[in-house]
């Protein structure tokens, strides 16, 4: 797949919305015009971050099974996307993530204990027990407060980027949305505004091929690619193998540089696959054949990157096993630490019910707080 110049005319890259950019071949070699030259340190950091993310997901599933949290959502198979892109962003840039981009935080070494405390809604939860598990917020890490409402934040990313442009800033925003959620109306709001104002934003669609029980066709994905949606707004669009860490990183770098150089928005469809259930409340055996997930379309992104770095002599099976054990242990110990602050809402303060509704608590809320007696 060709790699156009960053300042190419959007009209001259329409083909990239229907093809699939990929770098890692079957032999785990990085090939083609998008292979570029990725810093080996970054590759290993990416690999470790993906492994830590997976270890984190597994540990959280254990907590959920143990009844320590009511709810969890894994991103298994989609680790390369959040991490490959975050490692191309700079401090001060702002992500508007969905619930499946925990990798954005983990690869920045956000304190895992804080993530777990949020999930446990305990006394150390940075969000004071108010939010559903996994709906993190971490301003200092360029991570906008996740909404439980689908699609609403795509336009926030556009608005944030417009603000950056208005202020003559070089910071950029990234929007995140799932394949199913592209059907939401605010997807259109985001694209129209991105088209009209040309702000520095990268609009990601994570096409993991399933919403909850409905496959991508129910979002209109059968007759055109999701990447093609952007063409009708004159926005350049690329369709990429999202399980290919190097492709993710390189395409992200390209789009981020485009934004940073004020050349306008880019949409990227990341083709991937949701191997796990939608959430701990979901049972995919009710709506999709087990063989489909067993086959793992597009393959395990960790395995694919692992093979690449091993092949390049940067990594080994042994170190991989070691790292797996290490991250497993890290998550086990960190979970233990987090549990000391309480599980399943223990330790959340009732006063926090009334705080942060407004900057200053108005009289009627003070009165209601007194009614509750806290």
């Amino acid at each position: 797949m060709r790699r156009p110049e960053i300042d190419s005319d959007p009209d001259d890259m329409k083909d990239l919305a229907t093809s699939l950019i990929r770098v890692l071949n079957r032999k785990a070699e990085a090939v083609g015009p998008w292979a570029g030259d990725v810093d080996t340190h970054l590759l290993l950091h990416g690999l470790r971050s993906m492994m830590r993310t997976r270890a984190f997901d597994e540990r959280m599933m254990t907590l959920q099974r143990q009844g320590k949290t009511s709810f969890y959502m894994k991103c298994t198979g989609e680790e390369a996307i959040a991490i490959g892109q975050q490692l191309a962003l700079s401090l001060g840039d702002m992500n508007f993530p969905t619930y499946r981009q925990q990798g954005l935080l983990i690869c920045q070494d956000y304190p895992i204990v804080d993530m777990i405390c949020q999930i446990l809604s305990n006394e150390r939860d940075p969000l004071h027990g108010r939010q559903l598990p996994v709906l993190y917020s971490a301003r200092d890490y360029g991570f906008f407060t996740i909404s439980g409402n689908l699609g609403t934040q795509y336009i926030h990313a556009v608005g944030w980027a417009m603000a950056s442009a208005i202020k003559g800033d070089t910071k950029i925003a990234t929007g995140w949305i799932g394949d199913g959620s592209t059907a939401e109306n605010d997807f259109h709001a985001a694209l129209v505004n991105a088209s009209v104002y040309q702000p520095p934003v990268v609009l990601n669609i994570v096409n993991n091929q399933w919403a909850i029980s409905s496959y991508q066709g129910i979002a209109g994905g059968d007759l055109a690619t999701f990447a093609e949606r952007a063409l009708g707004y004159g926005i350049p669009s690329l369709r990429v193998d999202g399980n290919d860490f190097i492709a993710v990183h390189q395409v992200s770098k390209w789009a981020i540089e485009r934004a940073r150089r004020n050349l306008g928005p880019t949409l990227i469809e990341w083709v991937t696959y949701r191997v796990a259930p939608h959430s701990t409340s979901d049972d995919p055996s009710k709506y999709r054949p087990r063989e489909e997930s067993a086959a793992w379309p597009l393959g395990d992104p960790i395995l694919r990157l692992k093979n690449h770095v091993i092949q390049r002599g940067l990594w080994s099976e042994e170190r991989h096993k070691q790292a797996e054990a290490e991250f497993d242990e890290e998550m086990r110990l960190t979970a233990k630490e987090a549990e000391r602050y309480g599980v399943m809402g223990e330790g959340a303060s009732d006063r926090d019910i009334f705080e942060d509704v407004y900057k200053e608590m108005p009289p009627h809320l003070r009165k209601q707080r007194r009614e509750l007696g806290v």
Partner: protein
Amino acid sequence: MAQMSMIEAIRSAMDVMLGRDENVVVFGEDVGYFGGVFRCTAGLQEKYGSSRVFDSPINESGIVGAGIGMAAYGLRPCVEVQFADYIYPAYDQIVSEAARLRYRSAGQFTASMTIRSPCGGGIFGGQTHSQSPEALFTHVSGLKTIVPSTPYDAKGLLISAIEDDDPVIFLEPKRLYNGPFDGHPDRPAQSWAGHPQGEVPEDHYTVPIGKARLVRDGSDATIVTYGTMCFVAEAAANETGIDAEIIDLRTLLPLDIDTIVNSVRKTGRCMILHEATRTSGFGAELSAQIQEECFYNLEAPIVRVTGWDTPYPHAQEWHYFPGPERVGRELANLMEASS
């Protein structure tokens, strides 16, 4: 008579109506093949085919908007919005279109459709799986708003809603799907099995829109409520020993004001109880109407017991939710207030 959970009763209502009226169609997110995230439509696609029962894209405005177009054609869509917290993207279609068609076309076009949506808290769902937005619909002329509290009522009212020639908002208290809930989260979950209101005819029957239900006869005070709070009110009355008359509104609009007024005239004291946030909640309308009608009978101020005026918190759920303890305390206060 069969024993049904509220989920089964709701499913049975749609099943009956899909069978009786070929203009009835059922759709929404995950509603078709899978049968809905709460299983309310499980098996219906298999039984009636995918042109009668189907999945929709994740676009609530589209669900309601397409439903309006279908209703204009002559169908009777019964659509699901997965959680009432996700109904806002469809709010414009509901308010500006569904509620207005008949009026602005002088009856040429109508939106005979039902919009079902699970509402309310008590399932540890946090701010986007717990809301009770009923007052946002009772303020809109042209809509009817229903909140059932038992399997029997849910089925009878849903059939009435589907048969109604006006748009109906049908909010299902999700905490009651599998059993009654009296607001004691620490006690074992109850089920509808064995509950008299869990006895539900398999066939067609209706519960009329606009008629309240007396949950409990009493003489000390009147509790006007609906949804999950019916059970909390009962628990509070039993636990305090205060002989409260409890009215389950079932339909919020049109409101059965007569039943309320008769009770308040009898008891002289009134509590309004709902999960939704207080300010401009439906309790405000109830309070206003009750004092308009019963001013000379009231022995104490009407009291509202409600969710706090904050987003619905996750971990602090049981301090947000108006449970039997809080209701009992306020009931005792109400009895003490001097006239």
